């Protein structure tokens, strides 16, 4: 049955959200793909627009038409050209604007659109972000990222992370990257992310709360979290492994796990797996119950006020 969403922001219909990684010495490049040709009548070219946020998230610039993306094609874009604060990380949102809908948008850039069409275009492909050095070394990951914290896109405004992928040596760190964005007008709340780092025996070796300002990307070092928790840091090539668990009850965040060897200039990037990958029905009320039980589990420290 058709389910038309009224006044949906066209620039929120199909987005790819990335962060730059200048603070770790990497430049950023994206490859946007268009596989809408697999969706029959929904096939469309895209005009690619771009929002670049200041490092503190309080300012932004919007660029119209930074690229054209035809059907069954890809476009590779170097983000370095749009960075405005050398050495600092910035959030960038690529807006894939269906060209066949541009003329249908009202003065506010909104269209009435079937929900199935939104999901069909958004899920037709993933996109690629890569972080590279000038010597050629590059590491990246494919993922999809919707218009988080925009109720016309999704009412799910929580985040859960389970990541058995924290590896530390004297030179190796694991860093949680979280992006916090929204498409709601006048959005200004901080996201409150409660984190717990567990050893193999389920003992929390560090518990903390991070507040993430809107329209920013935060890097959370597990090495620093461990140190702040009073744990001794690994020395030499002795590798320690931990599981990171995290919960945010007031915002949908975009998490990536970065394994970084700063001394050697190497990087591994991987997205997390949402709960539905573990339990196929963990959505809606089942997800809400999961979060309610996690809150009472004692695995996270009580939220700091």
């Amino acid at each position, binding site marked *: 049955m058709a389910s038309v969403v009224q006044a949906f922001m066209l620039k929120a219909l199909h987005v790819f959200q990335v962060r730059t990684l200048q603070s770790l010495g990497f430049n950023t490049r994206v490859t946007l793909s268009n*596989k809408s040709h697999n969706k029959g009548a929904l096939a469309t070219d895209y005009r690619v627009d771009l929002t670049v946020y200041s490092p503190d998230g309080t300012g932004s610039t919007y660029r119209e038409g930074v690229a054209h993306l035809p059907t069954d094609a890809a476009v*590779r874009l170097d983000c370095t050209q749009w960075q405005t604060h050398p050495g600092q990380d910035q959030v960038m949102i690529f807006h894939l604007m269906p060209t066949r809908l541009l003329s249908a948008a009202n003065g506010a850039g909104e269209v009435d659109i079937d929900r199935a069409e939104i999901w069909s275009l958004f899920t037709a492909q993933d996109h690629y972000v890569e972080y590279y050095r000038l010597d050629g070394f590059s590491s990246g990951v*494919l993922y999809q990222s919707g218009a988080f914290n925009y109720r016309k896109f999704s009412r799910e405004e929580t985040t859960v992370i389970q990541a058995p992928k924290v590896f530390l040596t004297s030179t190796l760190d694991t860093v949680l990257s979280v992006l916090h964005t929204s498409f709601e007008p006048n959005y200004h709340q901080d996201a409150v992310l409660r984190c717990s780092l*567990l050893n193999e025996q389920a003992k929390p070796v560090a518990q903390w709360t991070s507040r993430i300002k809107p329209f920013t990307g935060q890097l959370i070092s597990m090495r620093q979290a461990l140190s702040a928790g009073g744990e001794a840091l690994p020395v030499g090539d002795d590798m320690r492994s931990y599981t990171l668990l995290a919960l945010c009850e007031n915002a949908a965040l975009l998490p990536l796990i970065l394994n970084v060897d700063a001394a*050697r*200039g190497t*990087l*591994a990037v*991987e997205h997390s797996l949402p709960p539905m990958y*573990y339990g196929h029905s963990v959505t809606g009320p089942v997800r809400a119950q999961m979060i309610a039980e996690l809150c009472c589990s004692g695995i996270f420290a009580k939220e700091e006020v």
Partner: protein
Amino acid sequence: MELKKRVRDACPDFALQAYRRVRDKLAPAKLTAPVVQMYINDGDIQTTAGFNNFLSFLAAGVQTSGKLRVTLRDADGARLVDQTMRLNHFENRFLDIQAMLARYGKQSRLGLISLVFVPDHLRDQAYKRLGILASQFFMFYKGGKGSIAMVHPSSTLDPHSPSSGPFITNQVVDTVGLEAVTLYQCNPSQVPHELTIGLQDAETKAVVCSQTLNLPPLGVRKVSFAAGSAFSANGRALRVFSSSLPTANSKPMLCRSYSDGRFSMSHS
């Protein structure tokens, strides 16, 4: 089948509903087939698999303990290690593949690891409301010169998973500074699978280099394409392609090797 239908037709609705309630209550939670990914243990690269008791996380209201079954196979699909270990509530395990193989007196440079976690109380309603359960994990690869990679599994050992058609990755390989591109391809199915895998020009889609692989059931193959001979490291962008995938989403892993000895790797 006919008898079943006749019994169903003969039963009053209230009796059928009562039967179904009891049946659903007694039925165990459903698990996917073991989740699978490739390990590398070739002297240059070592692998660690990270697994957490995900049911503690998804259903924290109940104390979940259970058994984690780990199976290692070699590149031809032969079973080398089959180990079961207990996991208590919120516990996790980091499985050093090299150490596991050594403990069992086995040697293998490349192969499959598969994991499945079975909770002690599989009929607990707390698990059944989660739907079909998949024992996801993450693979950490570590090599020389500080090279590291993190890759999640893409497929399971489901014997009914159908092969899929041509695959082209959405990621682009920049050839600047590259010494080689190495692809790791697994076959999680129970039958042999032949495919042609390689690199194509990202823009023109012309095939640049390729190799046909005959993958045994549950086997793994590695193919390397050297810069200079297989492709030109002139800055032209490439994409990985495959003529087919042995099962749903069993995509190759893509390793970029650089001339200074470092590598990066991801799912394609």
